[in-house]
């Protein structure tokens, strides 16, 4: 994969060989090493960030790796780049490389214990990094939580649009069902609300954390029931028809909530308890990724792919196509509902106008940007789209030209998305690297 320097003009050749050298140099760093580097960088920002930013002429640590700062005030561009280099890139590169031997040995030890322990340690590092990063301002915290929720929604839609090969448009509807069910549950039971009156169960706030999963699961179940309503009539057909039926379903849900005065109608429902904190959202997102990843790698997941590639052939191969599709669709709707419940509790306000065509376009963009039929793709798509749309916000209307152009470019050069049709193999990710790779 290295570039031969001889054949290319000198400058490009030198660059190329530098890149390949760097790549070779870092190929021996395991995921554990990178995560350690990130954790160190984030901790560094925690301790030194403010001082470095001040020294560079910025009033505060730039959020989103300096993008927003640059766009708002181009004069600060060198400072923002320097900041990112000093706080993030250099420490990560240094720590990842210098501890490579140690982290490789550690990764091997952890893996020999059990892959569960190893995964838990990796997740712990990721959580630690996210926690420290988002600790610096509430804005980062909100961003991280909404991005994690976006990952859940994207992944659950990918299940239908990617793994099952149908085109479903009802995900905002499922989210709305989940959001409203979970909100009504928590607001009626635990909040002194103007609409529903005093809480039915006055629990100490600490206990609320333990009841919250019930609300979310309830939201997911209601969303799945809604999915059943779509699935029964529409799974007799394929392709465009499901798209139309599911789109209609989305509008039905929106109108239903708009006309339900008891949950606030178009004015929305507010006052959800503040339970969707970072650990809660993180745990649910991890659970969602883990369960969906296992689902698509199971027999049922493979059957789902078979249905996509040839329903008749799959049927002939004794796959119960109807049941497979039904299970996958309801399963996807369940996670969209859970994500909706979390979404409502992060914003602590929910209105039917949120779950409209714009939301649908956003979710579809994340799925197709990241890549069909791929768990990693969904994560990349959701994170990429969220960060990009947040980073470009200072550009205002131009943002809405850049993002569609990017999507078009992705569609031209990678028609199925950035990381499509690839398995998300946790074992492969967390194994030690560097030694001659034995497979």
């Amino acid at each position: 994969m290295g570039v031969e320097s001889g054949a290319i003009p000198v400058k490009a050749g030198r660059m190329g060989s530098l890149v390949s050298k760097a790549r070779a140099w870092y190929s021996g760093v395991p995921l554990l090493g990178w995560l350690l580097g990130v954790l160190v960088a984030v901790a560094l920002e925690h301790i030194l960030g403010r001082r470095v930013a001040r020294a560079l002429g910025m009033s505060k640590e730039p959020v989103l790796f300096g993008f927003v700062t640059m766009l708002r005030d181009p004069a600060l561009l060198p400072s923002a780049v320097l900041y990112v280099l000093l706080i993030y890139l250099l420490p990560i590169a240094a720590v990842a490389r210098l501890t490579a031997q140690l982290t490789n040995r550690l990764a091997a030890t952890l893996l020999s214990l059990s892959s569960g322990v190893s995964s838990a340690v990796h997740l712990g590092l990721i959580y630690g990094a996210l926690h420290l990063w988002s600790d610096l301002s509430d804005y980062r915290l909100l961003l991280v939580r909404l991005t994690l929720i976006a990952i859940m929604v994207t992944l659950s839609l990918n299940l239908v649009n990617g793994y099952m090969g149908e085109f479903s448009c009802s995900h905002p509807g499922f989210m709305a069902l989940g959001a409203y069910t979970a909100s009504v549950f928590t607001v009626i039971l635990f909040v002194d609300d103007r609409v529903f009156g005093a809480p039915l169960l006055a629990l100490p706030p600490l206990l609320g954390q333990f009841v919250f999963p019930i609300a979310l699961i309830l939201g997911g179940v209601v969303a799945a029931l809604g999915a059943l309503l779509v699935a029964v009539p529409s799974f007799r057909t394929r392709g465009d028809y499901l798209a139309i039926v599911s789109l209609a379903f989305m509008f039905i849900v929106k109108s239903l909530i708009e006309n339900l005065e008891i949950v606030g109608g178009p004015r929305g429902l507010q006052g959800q308890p503040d339970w969707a904190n970072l650990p809660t959202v993180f745990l649910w997102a991890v659970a969602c990724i883990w369960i969906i990843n296992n689902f698509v790698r199971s027999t049922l997941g493979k059957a789902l792919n078979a249905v996509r590639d040839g329903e008749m052939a799959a049927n002939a191969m004794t796959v119960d196509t109807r049941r497979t599709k039904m299970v996958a669709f309801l399963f996807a709707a369940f996670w969209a509902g859970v994500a909706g419940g979390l979404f409502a509790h992060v914003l602590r306000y929910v209105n039917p106008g949120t779950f409209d065509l714009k939301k649908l376009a956003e979710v579809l963009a994340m799925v197709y940007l990241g890549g069909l039929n791929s768990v990693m793709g969904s994560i990349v798509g959701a994170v990429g789209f969220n960060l990009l749309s947040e980073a470009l916000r200072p550009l205002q209307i131009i943002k809405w030209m850049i993002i569609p152009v990017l999507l078009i470019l992705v569609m031209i050069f990678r028609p199925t998305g950035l990381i499509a049709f690839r398995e998300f193999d946790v074992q492969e990710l967390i194994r030690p690297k560097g030694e001659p790779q034995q497979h």
Partner: protein
Amino acid sequence: MSKKHTFRLVALLLVGATILGACGPAGPDTIKIGINAPLTGDIPKVGEGTKFAAEMWLADIEAAGGLEVGGKKYNVELVIEDNESKAESATKASTKLITQDEVLIIVGPQSSKQAVPAGGVANDNETPMVSPWSTNPNTTLDRPWVFRSCFLDPFQGPVAANFITEEFGFSKAAVLYDVASDYPKGLAEFFKAAWEDLHGAGSVAAFESFTTGDADFSSQLTNIINSGAEVIFTPQYYNEVALIVQQAHELGWDKPIVGSDSWGSAETVELCGADCYGLFFSTHYAAAGATGATKAFIDRYEAEHGYVPDDVGALTWDTMLIVQEAIQGCGEVSGELEKDRQCVRDALARIKDFDGITGKMTFTEEGDPIKCAVIVRISEAGEFEFYKSACP
């Protein structure tokens, strides 16, 4: 070789850092004011009006050499965030303004669907917020940190009902509204309640609704015409107003149609044309025939941006002046954000008889102003003429 390169690079970076460091941070001489406005999305005109009015205010402050608080001049920086006309983006924008940009006070969001959740964020973070345009009671309800500078729907409904009764002497009204949009729906209900208070149950002969995006209102209008109503009240936005009025006239309706402050956009007359001439609506201020400070603002806005400002622009202008008065009323800016925010909030709550271009304002306990509404007539020249004012 690569090691040498790396060292050179790092050395270069450090030198750069020290040079840049000499520029120094913004310091406590600057007062930051956040603007949370819908610059893109469904209602970009509203965002534009907000931005222009705020920038005009800033230009005034800069011309005066800064904002004088307690004998010291401070620079003012406006941090304008786009909320894309979405609830979640408004929440993000407000959170960013409060915790990242560390603004002293936030102006906006404008629409209630963004102002309600953003108000929650401001209240939780103990940062004062003033929404110029949000008329939903929930925006400020039980939120000591949130204020607004417009009247509320529960006030505007009775104003329209009283005006129709006094002006025309009618006793049967029809209402046509968008059931999916919170503002028209709320106002339609408040109007209905006020009308039935005046004329008894059943006096609202037709209460017809449609959904956002509908363009054909003939069936609802036919129902209204057949119901024997003498007037139509339709609290809709400019694009629907034009369609409703034109279609009503095509169907043979020749009685008055009355609207609300959402009519107050320059686009209304442009889209509706002669069909709208002679109609009345209630709003925050009247552009045509204005005098004094109001006229000065309108003329200046028109000279700078090429069109007569609608109510959002005027309300934002008033809001900026209220914010200015609150900051000045605070006496000093200590640089400690928590203390300053508390001080500005208290100063806001204390404001009495503020003389704005959209009327005199005094805040109630809830942070809502007590102010007069204006009835505007669309003249034969397509201008919004002052007709009369209605005070609480």
